[in-house]
């Protein structure tokens, strides 16, 4: 049985059907990249998996099953147990998801204490340990900083540390490297690959950078205007796919030593 199964899902915001008939399977330890242009509905899909559709968004048809659990039938209480524990999400700018007027450590401790019966002191130590495991030196200083005092790359590492605290089986990442510089992006991508190798985490990464998607994904899903137009193993998508849209996207990626316009 797959870890995550999305079957013929429709998602609507109010009366607008945004994502049509989306299906996707994810095995344990597998990384799936969802690519597409802005507005193609790729973020909407992973938000639906997390039960975090904003506003009037809802899944209007289909099934989402995680580890045998029907995610669409979960109560509020059951969601709170699952979210941040078995399934975690990393956002484009992890600094923006945190309260700007509170120390990172305070937010982190609150998060740990929600999921675990643990003293404040132990929760702080756990936070420091996770941050240092994500290769941020001096975790204690990071915990005592405000989000705006850290660089974009450091904030993203804190976000990953938070998401990985309970070693979730499924990690959803929404454009985790888009706001970062190229060298930092390479560091973060490497860190994601290590998570999979060390903990066997399954990852869905949403990105518009096809290079990153191809490097990370065992499987690639191409979306356009709310529909999955093409999906398959990486080798298939990159070399064998005959889908015109996939070809158009791949052709547009600048490659080193590739085509010159002048």
């Amino acid at each position: 049985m797959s870890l995550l199964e999305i079957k013929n899902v429709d998602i609507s915001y109010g009366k607008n059907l945004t994502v049509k008939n989306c299906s996707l399977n994810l095995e344990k330890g597998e990384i799936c990249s969802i690519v597409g242009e802005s507005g193609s509905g790729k973020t909407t899909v992973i938000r639906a998996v997390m039960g975090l559709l904003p506003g009037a968004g809802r899944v209007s048809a289909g099934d989402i099953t995680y580890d045998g659990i029907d995610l669409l039938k979960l109560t509020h209480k059951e969601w709170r147990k699952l979210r941040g524990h078995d399934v975690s999400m990393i956002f484009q700018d992890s600094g923006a998801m945190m309260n700007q007027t509170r120390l990172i450590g305070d937010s982190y401790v609150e998060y740990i204490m929600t999921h675990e019966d643990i003293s404040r002191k132990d929760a702080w130590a756990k936070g420091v340990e996770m941050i240092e495991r994500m290769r941020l030196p001096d975790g204690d200083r990071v915990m005592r900083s405000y989000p705006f005092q850290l660089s974009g790359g450091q904030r993203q590492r804190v976000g990953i540390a938070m998401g990985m605290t309970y070693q979730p089986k499924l990690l959803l990442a929404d454009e985790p490297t888009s706001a970062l510089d190229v060298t930092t992006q390479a560091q973060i991508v490497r860190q994601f690959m290590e998570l999979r190798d060390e903990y066997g985490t399954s990852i869905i990464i949403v990105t518009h950078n096809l290079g990153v998607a191809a490097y990370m994904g065992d499987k690639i899903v191409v979306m356009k205007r709310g529909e999955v137009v093409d999906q398959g193993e990486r080798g298939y998508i990159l070399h064998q796919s005959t889908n015109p849209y996939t070809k158009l996207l791949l052709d547009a990626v600048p490659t080193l030593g590739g085509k010159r316009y002048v």
Partner: protein
Amino acid sequence: MFDEKDLLIDARHVTRRFPTNDGRLLTACDDINLKFYKGKTLGLVGESGCGKSTFMRFLVWLDYPTEGEIFFHGKDITKMKGAELHENRQHIQMVFQDPSTSFNPKMKIKEIVCEPLLNFNRIKPSEMDAKARELLELVELPGDFADRFPHNMSGGQRQRVAIARAIALEPEFIVMDEATSALDVSVQKTVIELITRLQREKNIAIGFICHDLGLIESFAHQVAVMYLGNIVEVMPGEGLSDVCCHPYSRALLNSVFDTKMDFTKKIENIKGEPPSPLDLPPGCPFSNRCPHCTERCEHEKPKLVELTPGHEVACHRFSK
């Protein structure tokens, strides 16, 4: 490699320091020497905060250097004032990164693209409709867009309008500050094709700020790599990945993900983050992250030396 008689802009020893609140000085650009040639593109590459935008802003009079001169047709533009400055502004134009914030949302597209022309009395207000149509068609947009507002258009279309506005005065030089990084890849490709076509037709020089070496390699004639306010390498754009040799440029190059790379390759990356520009290492700015750092690098700042014509690098490994 370039003909010296085509020299358009010559920046010499340009330095910019910003005073901070606690009385220290932040050096955003440190002794920059760059040359721009007619009809050629210079790509300026580096990470956020390295001073690439600060430098390009001098060329369009949005800021002034603390020291140094920038010659445009033999005249120092940093000293221009009044009528002379106004006259010269029409020769140098700019395209900004985010097209949705660089337009007045209450102006129609025709007013946006014709505003520079009206400013310099090149057209009468009655000619605006026809001229707007002509400019829009030049950037491959339907002429009917003239009566739209910026919010009725997609990001790629807006960026085309920004280009139309920049070329309206037929400038000799255009600064493009990450002009494609807010766009999707397929749109980015068409915008690059448009820019290179216009450059060929009108012989415009372009200064293109970018952080994607893969992209810049595809259309720049020369590429300068900047790190913490210093130019560390200047090289020809063609075959850049073979010749580039500064450890920082190599690190940038290794950070490029593309769809034709070897996916089994382990990502090698440079350690840590760039230091604060207020707290620079005394020697080479890259010394604390460089895998080849020696004692000399920690004390002595390397100067740009020419390896082959058109290829200069600032690194002790390559100086004699």
